[in-house]
């Protein structure tokens, strides 16, 4: 049996559902929905999917591109990578300095000479380029005369030829020789200790020492090893005629006096070196050296014993 109360309830509910069913107006609906739509973006700003996709693609492209560039950089010779010493590329503006710094034998000198691409370098004979090493030695000695302690310290250094530092000196300007007519400036008198340090060793040992010291001397003059004597010629104008400088000049792989080297010598030293060349039977080089001597010291009289070498 059905409960009378339930039956009454069902009848009442049925009667209620038969009542009119009013609903909100369209304006009320629009107001409520507009409010809901307006509140939604403020609470949770929705970002279009294409924006996220585009941003992701851009980030990936940038990352891949950067990684690719970083991977490629060590493989190629970038313009910023230092030019290797033996490289045949480059303008050659800095290679002469490197080549001169490494002029330890004729092969290297010839190689450096072959690399000289500029007209200025072509005007230089190879022997002039090789002469930079003795000049370097002299330069260091001269520096040692000004600072004996430093000179002794340099003398105690190993005589290795560090090529890497030489390469680091690539930016050094070229060793363009000065006009031969430029007379050397007077220098301070050399200290006796420096005179004793002057090597009378054969050229084979002198050149590495010169190169090594040239590199070490870069601490004083980063521009290189060749320009220092030109910038500060400091010729041994007051040296004695028989000081080892002449021997050093003469023993430099048989190279006679060059245009640049004698400019650091006093007239007496130069003439003495010319005499030694002549005495050794190398009249041609002696004559060349004498000609250069006259060009550098036009006012100096030519000794009678050397006049035979004049043209």
């Amino acid at each position, binding site marked *: 049996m059905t409960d009378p109360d339930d039956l009454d309830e069902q009848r009442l509910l049925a009667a209620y559902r038969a009542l009119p069913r009013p*609903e909100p107006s369209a304006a009320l609906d629009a107001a*409520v*929905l507009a409010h809901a739509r307006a509140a939604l973006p403020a609470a949770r700003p929705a970002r279009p999917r294409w924006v996220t996709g585009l941003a992701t693609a851009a980030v990936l492209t940038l990352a891949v591109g950067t990684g690719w560039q970083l991977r490629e950089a060590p493989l190629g010779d970038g313009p910023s990578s230092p030019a290797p010493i033996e490289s045949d590329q480059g303008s050659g503006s800095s290679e002469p300095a490197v080549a001169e710094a490494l002029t330890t034998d004729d092969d290297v000198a010839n190689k450096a000479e072959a690399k000289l691409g500029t007209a200025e370098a072509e005007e230089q004979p190879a022997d002039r380029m090789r002469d930079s090493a003795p000049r370097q030695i002299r330069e260091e000695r001269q520096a040692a005369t000004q600072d004996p302690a430093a000179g002794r310290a340099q003398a105690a250094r190993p005589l290795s030829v560090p090529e890497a530092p030489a390469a680091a000196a690539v930016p050094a300007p070229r060793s363009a020789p000065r006009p031969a007519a430029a007379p050397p400036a007077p220098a301070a008198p050399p200290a006796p200790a420096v005179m004793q340090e002057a090597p009378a060793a054969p050229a084979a040992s002198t050149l590495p020492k010169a190169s090594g010291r040239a590199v070490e001397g870069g601490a004083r003059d980063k521009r290189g090893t060749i320009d220092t004597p030109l910038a500060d010629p400091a010729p041994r104008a007051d040296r004695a005629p028989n000081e080892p400088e002449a021997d050093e000049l003469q023993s430099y792989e048989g190279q006679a006096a060059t245009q640049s080297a004698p400019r650091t010598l006093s007239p007496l030293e130069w003439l003495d070196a010319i005499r030694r060349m002549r005495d050794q039977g190398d009249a041609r080089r002696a004559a060349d050296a004498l000609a250069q001597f006259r060009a550098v010291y036009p006012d100096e009289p030519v000794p009678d014993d050397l006049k035979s070498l004049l043209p």
Partner: protein
Amino acid sequence: MANSRTLALVSTERSDESLMQAWVGGDAAAFEALYARHRGMLFRYLLRSLKQQTATEELFQETWVRVVAARQRWQPQARFSTWLLQIAHNLMVDHWRRQRPAESDPETVLAALDAPEEDRPDAQWTQFEQRRRLQRALEALPDEQREAFLLRAEAGLGIEEIAEATGVGRETAKSRLRYAMARLRELLNP
């Protein structure tokens, strides 16, 4: 009401809770479906409780504004219709507290009901008169009893849900609903 019909078609399959969660997650269409499903029930509940068209529209809109504002606090365990009617109930209580006890005005309510045309012919006068008497009987009920009946008849809530929506105990809600039913029977069958 083409608009309401369109909205009603949208809200046919998904549950209220699913729509609510989707809307909280940013789906604007979910709210439209939810609104279409409950707009009529809420409006009638408010209209037959308040018996004032203007107050009904005001509280109807305010109820949805509260829903929008409090959507982040909604718990999926709660039934959406119960939560919605609870908000409406609280607004009505505040409204009643602000207003002096309004004198029953059945004519105003009946005028707002906008009865269908087919119910008004003279041939159906008896049926129309029965509905009018039911409406008058509803208006004569105490507010708590009428609200309990409306929650039962309009929203289909059970005793537990009526108690939850109105903020009273289960027995209180059951008692209110029982007294409402008895009073309506007396008024309809004098």
